[in-house]
């Protein structure tokens, strides 16, 4: 199918989790919705009908033991039981508060207090995290999944109003303390419904690897996947990722750029070790040429390369951070399309996505149904629609900073092209504002430098009114000033004068980075500069 515009898929919208589960159980009762490892070597499957029954039992038990309108934390590794606690909380008229299991106990306790949590469902491996928290009723996820609730068969799931609070996700954002993002049932329903209209699994199953306490891992992978009618295999532990890929044979994996980079390295190293680098390069050339003629030989040509991923991988849905378009091209060459999307927890989380057969490389895709975007005079992307959060929990000051007249200020800079694709160019907080009032996004220039083979990493800032590009070169290019001055000319070509790099600084050592290997901008630029 050509890369061009096509209508939305005809999948009816949902109004809530209860609606999503009941509709699926009614329309496709025997369809396997979830698969996961059970015991040492077994695999458990749950049909849509079974999922509804299990959630009904959980919701019945939760309402009987906690009541309604309570805040219920869910803590633990990804599992079917985790989902029963989350769905059970929502379907019993309670508010779910997913919490990161990898946080230290004191931070977990802080979040539980900040979110006014009354009860918690915790995986047995993480039960110490909630020990000693006063007034907190703790139940293990295992106990919930086995709990008996007489009369559960007649339990009516809670059907909320759009504006009713469904969950509180904690987001660390890029600075400051974690904030509790309040998402309503309407927020979740709008995102899930929108996702199923723009993306089709095309018969493939989904492998879930991202943690459920993140909106991307839960709302996009699980809820959207469930609603767009794919079987979802739950990977419980990243230690078993390789085995699970072989077992699940996914057509789709939702992930963040880190996974894409690691998958790329694995493939590259594998090709290198097998001594087939030239064969691979030729294969890519031949398949590209044939693809132009409408002949797709990639599934056969690169079958061996894709075997470790289960052999059926077709789509990687990627979000959460910037992904270099290089990876998109690389994976397309071997027959895997990276579907790049964009969003924020505050937007439930999806705002835009490239579609299966309508995409622009380097873009964050087209807007999801119901999403409105406008670009502020400063170039910031503002979003409005039913997916925008209710606000930060008990934090009106922080809410007021990002929500104005229904528009959520994303903190990202970007623009829309004439075909409706959203392009992101940087973060507002990194914007360089020159004395003449012109604005420059350093990331826009850095991306151009980073694409060059000689550049390991770059950082752009303003010093004394001039734009400086500081470069940490690849080893074989170290100290090669002539090469980088030529690169500077190349990057400057076609750019207005105020956006042109005036000076190159070559580094001998890597930039200062944080624990996730991200460059810490303010620690790397000389003082008295703007970056």
């Amino acid at each position, binding site marked *: 199918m050509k890369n061009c515009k096509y209508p939305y898929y005809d999948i009816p919208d949902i109004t809530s989790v209860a609606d999503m589960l009941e509709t699926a159980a009614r329309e496709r009762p025997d369809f396997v919705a979830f698969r996961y490892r059970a015991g040492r070597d077994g695999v458990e499957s749950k049909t849509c009908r079974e999922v509804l029954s299990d959630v009904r039992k959980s919701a019945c038990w939760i309402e009987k033991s906690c009541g309604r309108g309570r805040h219920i934390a869910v803590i633990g590794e990804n599992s079917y039981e985790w989902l029963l606690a989350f769905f059970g909380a929502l379907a019993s008229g309670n508010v779910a508060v997913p919490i990161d299991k990898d946080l230290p106990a004191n931070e977990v306790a802080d979040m539980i207090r900040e979110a006014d949590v009354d009860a918690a469902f915790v995986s047995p491996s993480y039960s110490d995290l909630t020990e000693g928290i006063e007034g907190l009723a703790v139940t293990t996820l295992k106990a919930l999944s086995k709990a008996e609730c007489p009369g559960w068969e007649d339990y009516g799931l809670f059907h909320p109003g759009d504006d009713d609070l469904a969950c509180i996700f904690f987001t660390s954002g890029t600075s400051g303390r974690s904030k509790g993002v309040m998402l309503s049932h309407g927020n979740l329903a709008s995102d899930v419904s929108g996702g199923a209209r723009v993306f089709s699994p095309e018969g493939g199953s989904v492998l879930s690897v991202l943690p459920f306490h993140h909106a991307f891992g839960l709302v996009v992978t699980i809820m959207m996947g469930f609603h767009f009618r794919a079987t979802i295999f739950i990977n419980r532990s990243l230690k078993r990722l390789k085995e699970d890929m072989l077992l699940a044979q996914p057509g789709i994996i939702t992930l963040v750029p880190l*996974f894409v980079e690691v998958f790329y390295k694995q493939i590259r190293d594998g090709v290198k070790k097998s001594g087939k680098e030239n064969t691979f390069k030729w294969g890519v050339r031949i398949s590209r040429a044939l693809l132009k003629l409408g002949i797709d030989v990639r599934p056969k040509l690169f079958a061996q390369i894709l075997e470790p991923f289960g052999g059926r991988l077709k789509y990687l849905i990627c979000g959460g951070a910037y992904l270099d378009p290089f990876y998109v091209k690389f994976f397309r060459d071997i027959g895997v399309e990276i579907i790049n999307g964009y969003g924020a927890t505050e937007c439930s989380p999806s705002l835009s996505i490239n579609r299966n057969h309508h995409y622009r490389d380097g873009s964050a895709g087209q807007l999801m149904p119901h999403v409105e975007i406008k670009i502020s005079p400063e170039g910031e992307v503002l979003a409005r629609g039913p997916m925008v959060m209710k606000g930060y929990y008990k934090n009106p000051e922080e809410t007021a900073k990002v929500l104005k007249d229904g528009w959520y200020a994303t903190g990202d800079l970007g623009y829309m092209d004439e075909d409706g694709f959203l392009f992101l160019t940087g973060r507002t907080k990194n914007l360089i504002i020159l004395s003449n009032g012109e604005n420059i996004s350093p990331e826009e220039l850095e991306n151009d430098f980073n694409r060059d083979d000689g550049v390991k990493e770059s950082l752009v800032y303003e010093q004394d009114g001039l734009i400086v590009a500081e470069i940490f070169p690849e080893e074989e290019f170290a100290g090669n000033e002539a090469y980088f001055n030529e690169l500077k000319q190349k990057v400057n070509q076609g750019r207005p004068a105020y956006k042109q790099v005036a000076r190159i600084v070559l580094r001998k050592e890597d930039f200062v980075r944080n624990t996730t290997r991200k460059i810490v901008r303010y620690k790397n630029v000389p003082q008295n500069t703007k970056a």
Partner: protein
Amino acid sequence: MFEKVTAILREYTNNENTPMSMESTLVDDLGLSSLEVINIVLAFEDEFGIEIPERIIPTMHTVGDIVAYLEKTV
């Protein structure tokens, strides 16, 4: 133990000359991502015939952390 640990780590850093000490950090000094650290943990499990709980992995920041854990467990 230090030699055994660094020998496995070197396979993943793709650079035999990467200097390693007990204080070397896996992410900052050896340039490994959190996902690669998980793969390395699997290699340690195979090598030493043990199972390392997933909760332990985020506490392994340095080569020394791995050595200390393995010395205690193996």
